[in-house]
């Protein structure tokens, strides 16, 4: 105890004693007990007495090393090997100290930890036979139903052989160490696009709003380097987590292999963590505590709108080129003004999306490195290709608008262009076609971004038709609108609107039918599709109704536009086409938000919320 504190308090007591007992001290009296107590309260224990005197060199090895030594490998991994977590499920009692130790020892944010512990319910139900106290028949011994109960499962980054985070990252912010196999995230390289949170099937990288980047487990490689055990390994009271050297297999023999029930297929990224258990079979058939309990996923709204707008833009130009081609073949031609306006509107729509997209980034200023991942990342490819699409489209527009604007351009600027170079009239047209091709390639990359995650609800059969149809549905009516503005009697208007109406109606009907089917069919309640559909009709009902309502509105407007076109009500046609375009773009945007928000996927075991 601090001696000063002691004597001070004694003095206080003495001075008081001489006057006590005092029922109530007078206000403002010279003896301020409360003040003394408050002051004492703010004095800390005399640490110079109690704290350990730490002489330099007193500890060569961390004190805790005594316990974790045997949980660590004795050598470095050889070629063809890497480091991996090994979890002994029989020892894990579910205390979750590993989660908190990871958080504390790594200095993570308030609610950040790179470990998580889920719970499995294992074993089937007890036999049907009801044993009342009066019954003679004896219930099977609880020993024989020994395989029921709970099993906790601790999980962190699996430092996969083929890490999804790494291959998906557009800026090479992940590196896999060629000796240890540790998958490390480069925090200063990350642009915060969150694509790794989709590419990692195990939900390992976690986004930090404060930093605008993701962070993840690096197996405490800074500790490993000095021979210390990772935080989770050294904090587990039961020594359930160890670092081991494993052989890198290159393939997963059993394609249906999963680390845990409901977990993603191990064939996707080839995780290296090994779970050991004497009741392996029971664990494999267990049910996670959060089984089929789903939450609405992140909307990624800038991405959703970027997808819809770029698809509409590409769709418009594609359809415009098509009808222009048909017109050309059939001897007519589309007025250049119509082409120019269509391309301009498409450009404007694309620019809205392309400018929204960076809102999705936590670190947009670092995004210039997005080309680095071209070799492996569909996100890099999309970014580059759609960039080129916008570039080609912009160039085409410049050429098409030049005759209009050239007279306003001061001579000293237009004179800069060498007269010897004359741009042929077909160049703008060719640029538009280039834009279409680049756009289609970009959109394909967009779709592949999600297909590559191997999330079942984002499978090609669900993603490609959705993405492609958006371009046709909105593109058709929007192009019809821009052409009708220039030439409201154009023969291409009708087919364009028809394309929209038919494809839009088919798509909407399919979705509605799906919803109905999952609502009525109880047999398939636990499938990912059914779970996703449940999210749509329950938690996301508002968006679902917007999807249907705006879609019906858009389709009705298109249908009326066809009627008014037939009766030559020109102004009405234009207005209805505009209305149809808006309705359908809103509807498609809602569809896309639902695509993101209703996604459910295989995951490692969790707990009730």
């Amino acid at each position, binding site marked *: 105890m601090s001696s000063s504190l002691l004597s001070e308090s004694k003095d206080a007591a003495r001075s008081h004693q001489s006057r006590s007992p005092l029922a109530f001290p007078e206000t403002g009296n010279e003896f301020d007990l409360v003040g003394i107590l408050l002051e004492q309260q703010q004095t800390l224990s005399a640490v110079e007495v109690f704290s350990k005197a730490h002489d330099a060199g007193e500890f060569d090895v961390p004190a805790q090393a005594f316990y974790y030594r045997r949980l660590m490998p004795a050598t470095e991994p050889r070629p063809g090997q890497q480091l991996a977590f090994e979890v002994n499920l029989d020892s894990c009692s579910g205390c979750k100290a590993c989660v908190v130790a990871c958080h504390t020892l790594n200095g993570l944010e308030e609610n950040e930890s790179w470990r998580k512990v889920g719970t499995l319910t294992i074993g089937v139900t007890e036999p049907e036979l009801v044993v009342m106290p009066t019954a*003679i028949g004896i219930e099977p011994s609880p020993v024989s139903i020994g395989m029921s109960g709970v099993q906790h499962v601790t999980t962190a980054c699996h430092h996969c052989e083929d890490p999804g985070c790494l291959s998906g990252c557009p800026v090479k912010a992940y590196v896999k160490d060629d000796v240890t196999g540790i998958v490390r995230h480069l925090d200063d390289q990350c642009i915060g696009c969150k694509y790794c949170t989709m590419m990692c099937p195990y939900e390992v990288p976690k986004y930090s709003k404060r930093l605008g980047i993701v962070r993840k487990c690096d197996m405490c490689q*800074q500790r490993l380097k*000095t021979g210390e055990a990772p935080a989770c390994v050294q904090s587990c009271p039961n020594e359930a987590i160890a670092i081991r050297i494993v052989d890198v297999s290159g393939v997963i023999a059993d394609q249906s292999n999963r680390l845990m029930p409901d977990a993603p297929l191990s064939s996707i990224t080839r995780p290296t963590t090994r779970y050991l258990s004497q009741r392996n079979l029971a664990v494999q058939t267990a049910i996670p505590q959060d089984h089929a309990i789903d939450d609405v996923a992140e909307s990624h709204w800038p991405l959703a709108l970027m997808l819809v707008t770029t698809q509409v833009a590409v769709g418009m130009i594609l359809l415009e080129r098509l009808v222009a081609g048909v017109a050309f073949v059939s001897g007519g031609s589309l007025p250049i003004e119509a082409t120019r306006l269509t391309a301009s509107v498409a450009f404007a729509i694309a620019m809205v999306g392309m400018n929204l997209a960076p809102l999705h980034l936590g670190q947009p200023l670092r995004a210039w490195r997005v080309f680095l991942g071209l070799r492996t990342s569909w996100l890099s490819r999309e970014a580059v290709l759609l960039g080129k699409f916008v570039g080609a489209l912009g160039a085409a527009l410049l050429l098409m608008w030049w005759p209009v604007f050239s007279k306003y351009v001061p001579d000293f600027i237009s004179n800069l262009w060498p007269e010897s170079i004359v741009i042929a009239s077909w160049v703008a047209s060719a640029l538009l076609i280039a834009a279409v091709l680049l756009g289609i390639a970009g959109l394909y990359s967009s779709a592949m971004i999600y297909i590559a995650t191997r999330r079942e609800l984002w499978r090609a059969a669900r993603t490609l038709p959705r993405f492609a149809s958006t371009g046709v549905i909105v593109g058709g009516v929007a192009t019809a609108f821009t052409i009708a503005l220039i030439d409201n009697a154009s023969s291409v208007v009708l087919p364009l609107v028809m394309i929209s109406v038919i494809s839009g109606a088919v798509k909407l009907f399919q979705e509605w039918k799906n919803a109905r089917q999952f609502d009525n069919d109880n047999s398939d309640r636990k499938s990912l599709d059914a779970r996703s559909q449940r999210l749509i009709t329950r938690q996301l009902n508002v968006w679902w109704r917007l999807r249907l309502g705006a879609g019906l509105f858009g389709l009705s407007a298109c249908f009326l536009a066809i009627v008014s076109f037939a009766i030559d009500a020109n102004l009405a046609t234009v207005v209805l086409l505009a209305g149809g375009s808006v309705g359908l773009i809103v509807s498609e945007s809602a569809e896309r938000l639902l695509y993101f928000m209703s996604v459910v996927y295989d995951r490692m075991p969790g707990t009730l919320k």
Partner: protein
Amino acid sequence: MSIDLALRTTDDVTLPKKLGAGLSLPQLFQRHEGTMTRELLLHPGQHGLGMTHESLAADSTTTATCGFCATGCGLRLHLREGEAVGLTPETNYPVNLGMACPKGWEALRVLDSPERATTPLLRGSDGTMQPIGWDEALKTFVEKIRGVQSRHGLESVAFLSTGQIPSEEMAFLGALARFGMGIRHGDGNTRQCMATAATAYKESFGFDAPPYTYDDFEQSDCLVFIGANPCIAHPIMWERVLRNRQQPQIIVIDPRRTETAMAANVHLQIRPKADLAVLYAITNELIARDCIDHVFVAEHTEGFDRLREHVAAFELSSVARDAGISIDAITRVVEAIGNGKAVSLWWTMGVNQSYQGTRTAQAIINIALITGNIGRPGTGANSITGQCNAMGSRLWSNTTNLLGHHRFEEEADRRKVATALNMDVECIPSTTSWKYDRIIEGIRKGEIKGLWVIATNPAHSWIDQSDVRKLFGNLEFLVVQDMYDTTETARLANLVLPAAAWGEKDGTFINSERRYGVLRKVRRAPGQALADFQIFRAIAHYWGVAEQFAEWTDPEAAYRIMQRLSRDQPCDITGIDGYQQLSECGGIQWPWTSQDAIENVAGPRPQRRLFSDGRFYHGDGRARLIVDEVSPLPEPPDEAYPITLLTGRGTVSQWHTQTRTRQSPVLRMLYPNEAYIEINPVDADALEITHGQKVRVQSRRGQITVTACVSTSVRRGQAFLPMHYEVANQLTLSHFDPHSGQPSYKDCAIRITATHP
């Protein structure tokens, strides 16, 4: 041993990646380094800490005993200029061996909360709480309590205390209230947790003396856990079990298939409250097979014949049938106990919180005694305590026992205590206090009109909670002294006194194995909050009894008084050389007498157990073998309420009423934030309940809506609701163990119905 990666610069985050090293890109394109990377940089730690993040970097460290459960882990506080910036489990503390559960890891975090009480609050005439100064608060306290006492008599004011404050504060509170303020009745929330064990020990051994030391977990070749789930409730004790190298048989007797049961060799998944009959049947079978230590029984116990006759009625087959388990399973348990060389039996709340808990605990004690499994390494009938200072409350709260576990009724004890306290013997009452349940009944009957609640939350935790809340409305004056002003009880108070918490004050806790460990004042209390010790000093002053308590200047001074009080008691600590020695030894188990200190210059051994000489604390030195009739469930399931509700600890990261643990964002991530009830899958199917949906749960006392958790850990006809959620005690049936007064939380009838959204 270590993986020598240090030489590999390509992997070193502290250095920019070298150009030309393999295919790596230059820093311009691929930034391996920068402010965000540095944020997670670890530095070679001093003080044996290993690689340390900046947030934990310390200029010195000190060790304090954890303030959550009674395991009493040592936490290494990382200090910067005397103030704790973080903590890690203490590697060399003899209790936890470098480990801690999540609560311990987050012990400092829960101090920083907007819910902390930072100033006294007084309920104004408009019903709202208004901040006031300490002077006004203390004057109000004295005026109101005195007012109640003068209107309704001295008996009309009571206090409800806790197992969460240090022993010194408990002793101060008990002495001040009963010797200074004339308060007649007071009890602690330890009534809800340890009263049964204390009563059972006292009757059987002659003193409330848990005989064991944690080393026994490692020395047993057979461990029997009855109504105990150390995996969840005491994970660091489970750590010790897993360090047992004797390849022990582990036996669990529990209605739930807990984590501990999963790890057992034999799990007797008995019907609720079948424990006493099963233990008697085991005893009977042990006697029948002559697995008895006859010499020990003859020399050190009394009542064996009565025991034998009594348990003879508990025939295996009928007991097994009633308990819903197989004869074979019980036989295996009997064999394991009978063949074991060092058998230890452990119990926790499954036994204590039972209407026949005292006798059940004694049935466990009987088994240890008759098989001679006591006083040797790896043996004992061992109660695992709940709260960090439950034993402090048992020894020092001055409620049902006179300070230092003396008796109010004995004049010699009163004189001894008066002398040790330097007080007039007349100020010590000759009657004991009412127990918790009687105090609550007193409120109902209008006998108690003023209540002072310290560091506990009865409006959440007391059985049949709605009844209690209603009763609190009958009080003329309710004072709550707590570190948070948002507890369910504080919200009902007339006056709230803001208390400093663990980490903000000094003192000692006594853990489950009788080990005194020190607390540390390493954080500044928020606002005007004062340590309970300081609040008691202030109250003594304002009450006008400052002179009587002049010696109680600081916790260590109080500790010296406690040492004097303990002289010649089984819990004698006169040999301990102050906080300094406690600190150096990693805590010291009682007893440690001045004689011990003289005889053992090297100081106390870190692991000491009781009764190695077979002498117990009754006058004749013999332990008593106590038996009683088995009684049926007071509220058996019936057609209207067909399910038996069990309550208990849900997860490691939740502590009791969650007032503290819910303040930590990390802890909140580790448990379901919404109340849930575990239901057997077959029952769930029958009730058309799907996992994760909301269900309505009704008892004769209340109705709640919680999430269904379909789980194989409960048997058919049973359901489990964690006690941490406020709603749990809206259902429970108010009934008690007649000997200990402990509430029986784990057996009431309910029905569950699906709600349709």
